């Protein structure tokens, strides 16, 4: 293979494409969409995070300003955890608007994460959302197909392919030249998007929470470069194996519709069909059922709680709970909280297992559909996938548990038992000592682990693409 011949062919393809009408219209459309997504992505990120930051601050302030009171009242006063957006959500909205944003954290109860954007939206949300990643995942692939469907097919129809080979250019040079040309063309769009994105990553780099975003950004860039390489290879292959340019176009459009719209949605729907999930009320009923089996705290004669009581009395060598060296109410609530949380989390884990099964059908389809691979990888790196949300939810639940148990501990240590003399409230300074809710994003290493399949699939597709092109280099038909 002669490098300069390949460059020449690639250059020629680019020049032809840039002069074409499709490119003209596409560029205008892309500029508009790009500006719009940058504007709406940034505004959404910036405004929402600002609002949430302010409210999270207010929540902490009001917590700290509570006067002296009984610690269990503070356990019910509770706190809120509000989800913060990752800077790369400006790039890929992912599930951002479909997951909740705020959760009330109180003793005894796991509340749902409420106020997702979806719950406050009209039916239009189902048409999808415009983001920089959506342009790269959905629109640019279509443009690559538009710009590349004719490359080899039309040259053959026109007879120029024969001429090229006649002039001593090898088939391999033609195939790789065209591929390189189409790929570079698509990178034009990619780099434009990523240069804009770099700006956002840089201005938020002062934030400790976003410290890993330059690294994530780099991985995203590499993944998309690879993805576009794969798409360009597919285009060249389809174009070469089609009799006419028209045939190539129709096939490529079909591939696009299948890969981007029909297959992902159908697989997701089939996954849902195969693995049914319980509704909230069903799961809560099951949780309650399991809890009562272990011990019903409402029942004064419950054997489970009676056994606890007896063993505590025995261990402390006293007759009545009132004589215990700690507050018995606080002690029992701490036990109850630990038990109910454990049971709840077990059920929740089961629910998420079912979700995983539902999603895996689509996830594994990455091996036949490169779009799925880049979709999942891009969401995960942008901190807008399901796992990122679960990370937040897990953190919030852990904080809730810590808060409830800390209040129980204070009650045990500082509040006298019923019938004993002593204050029924404790100093407000204790609230100030309890640390505020702090959230950090999923570590990038974890993201890699979660997305092994997508990465592997993308890599395999890359290898497959090159192999396909090599094979084409030997049996490309000139006529």
């Amino acid at each position: 293979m002669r490098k300069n011949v390949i460059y020449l062919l690639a250059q020629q393809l680019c020049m032809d494409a840039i002069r074409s009408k499709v490119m003209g219209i596409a560029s205008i459309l892309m500029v508009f969409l790009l500006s719009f997504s940058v504007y709406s992505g940034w505004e959404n990120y910036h405004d929402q995070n600002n609002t949430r930051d302010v409210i999270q601050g207010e929540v902490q302030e009001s917590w700290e300003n509570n006067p002296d009171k009984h610690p269990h009242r503070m356990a019910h006063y509770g706190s809120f955890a509000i989800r913060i957006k990752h800077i790369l959500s400006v790039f890929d909205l992912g599930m951002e608007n479909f997951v909740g944003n705020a959760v009330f954290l109180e003793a005894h109860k796991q509340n749902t994460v409420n106020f997702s954007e979806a719950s406050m939206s009209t039916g239009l949300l189902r048409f999808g959302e415009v983001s920089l990643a959506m342009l790269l995942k959905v629109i640019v692939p279509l443009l690559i197909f538009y710009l590349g469907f004719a490359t080899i097919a039309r040259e053959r129809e026109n007879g120029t392919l024969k001429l090229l080979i006649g002039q001593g250019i090898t088939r391999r040079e033609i195939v790789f030249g065209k591929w390189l040309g189409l790929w570079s063309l698509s990178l034009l769009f990619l780099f434009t998007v990523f240069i804009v994105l770099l700006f956002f990553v840089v201005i938020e780099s002062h934030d400790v929470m976003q410290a890993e975003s330059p690294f994530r950004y780099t991985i995203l860039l590499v993944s998309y470069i690879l993805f576009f390489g794969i798409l360009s290879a597919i285009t060249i292959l389809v174009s070469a194996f089609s009799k006419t340019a028209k045939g190539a176009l129709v096939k490529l459009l079909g591939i696009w519709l299948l890969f981007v719209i029909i297959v992902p949605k159908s697989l997701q729907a089939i996954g849902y069909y195969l693995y049914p999930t319980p509704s909230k009320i069903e799961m809560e009923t099951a949780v309650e059922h399991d809890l009562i089996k272990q011990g019903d705290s409402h029942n004064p004669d419950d054997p489970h709680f009676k056994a606890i009581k007896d063993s505590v009395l025995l261990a402390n060598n006293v007759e009545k709970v009132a004589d215990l060296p700690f507050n018995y109410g606080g002690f029992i609530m701490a036990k109850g909280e630990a038990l109910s949380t454990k049971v709840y989390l077990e059920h929740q884990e089961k629910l998420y297992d079912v979700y995983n099964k539902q999603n895996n059908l689509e996830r594994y389809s990455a091996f036949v559909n490169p779009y799925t691979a880049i979709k999942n990888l891009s969401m995960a790196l942008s901190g807008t996938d399901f796992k990122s949300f679960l990370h937040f939810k897990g953190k919030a639940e852990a904080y809730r548990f810590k808060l409830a148990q800390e209040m129980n501990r204070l009650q045990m240590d500082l509040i006298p038992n019923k019938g004993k003399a002593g204050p029924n409230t404790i100093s407000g300074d204790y609230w100030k000592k309890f640390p505020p809710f702090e959230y950090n994003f999923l570590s990038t290493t974890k993201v890699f682990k979660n997305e092994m399949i997508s990465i592997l699939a993308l890599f395999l597709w890359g290898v497959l693409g090159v192999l396909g092109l090599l094979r084409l280099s030997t049996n490309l038909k000139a006529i």
Partner: protein
Amino acid sequence: MYTLLFKSFFRTKIFLVSLMLLITVGTVSILIGKQYLVKQEKTIVAAQEFQKESVKRILKYNDKDIGLLLYYLKFTLVKKPANISAISIGQSDVNPLLQAVTIRGLEGQKYDTDFGNPSLLMSGNLDLGFVIIYLFPLVLIAMTFNLYSEEKELGTWRILAAQTSKKGKFLFNKLIVRILFVFAIFVFLMFLASGILQIPMNQNFWAIFFHSLLYLLFWSALCLFTVSLLKNSSFNALALISIWVVLTILFPAVVNNYVINKYQVPEALDAMVEQRDGYHEKWDLEKNATMAGFYEAYPQFNNYPVPEDRFSWIWYYGMQHMGDLAAKETSTEMVEKVKLRNVISEKIALFVPTMHAQLSFNSLAGTDMVSHLNFLKALTQFHERLRVDFYPRIFDKNPSDSVDWSNHKAKFYTLKNNFSWIYIMLPTILITMLITVFGLFNLRKL
């Protein structure tokens, strides 16, 4: 002539592919709708069971103190499921089907969500509405984009042109054959859906039916117009797919982003915090700080005494209600904002048949935003009725068995649904007519 056109159409590959695709995906979408309905049924049964069981269980240990009993007891209000919602699941997978609430502050319970797999929520439901809005147009495009250009490219056009003087009419008839075929599949699927999902053939069903037909006509008109430009096949395919992408993906998504950003709802988070603080701060204030507001809202309870030195239920439930009152203004603003989002979206949708179809399907199926807001309003009234009914019993310290608890089963709320045929049909009719006129005008020159 039509028999011949039909025959030749039936022999094409695209006919078979389209038939298979639409029937398969259509049937799958109906089955998904069925599953959605079954899940709803199951949830409702579980809710009814839950209500019955929890009353029994909680009553067992709290029969002495009705105030404490009602602290725990939950009362369920269910949106009465309408089978037609299976055609257009809309927002009903995001918004809960039912809400089980205690008579404590409502604001903190009202917006609790159901569980949903966000991946599924994001990819959206594969319901019949989706098949109609997205896939049917694609099939129309696939069958018509080379209506003229194929004959031209194969060279058969010249033979044809020599044999007939009405070339435009010939093309038009060829198009009609394909449109009729698509209509036939659509009608089949709708009746299949009506059978499998047991949808009553009421006004709403026919409104979706005719709106869909109109929507398909709109796409037929677009295809006709593109064909009438007499360009080559590649151009047509490219142009029509681009139009499809713009109308079903880009434009609605841009509008959605715009509406979400323009009308942000920080009130949602504010109201949540206000409710909690409005309630909790009362614990640390004079009892009068609670009771003044409570008596103002419910003067009928004026004569119940509130002991200053100890806990009383009237004070407790008064504090709970104060939480709701503290958040009321912000909460109302939030609802207004959400409504505004809906109004703006609907207005823009009047000019874009895809968006208009989606929004009116949802609204006809009772799965739109407005239906859910109406449910929340009904939930507020339901909650108020319960409170006003229970308050005097709690304040009078009635025994728990003075209430006939068997009356407190899960209650149903029926969606009210008024629509205007003109509002639904007219925008698409006008747009379709306009495009058809241009298309036919172009064909006349042929």
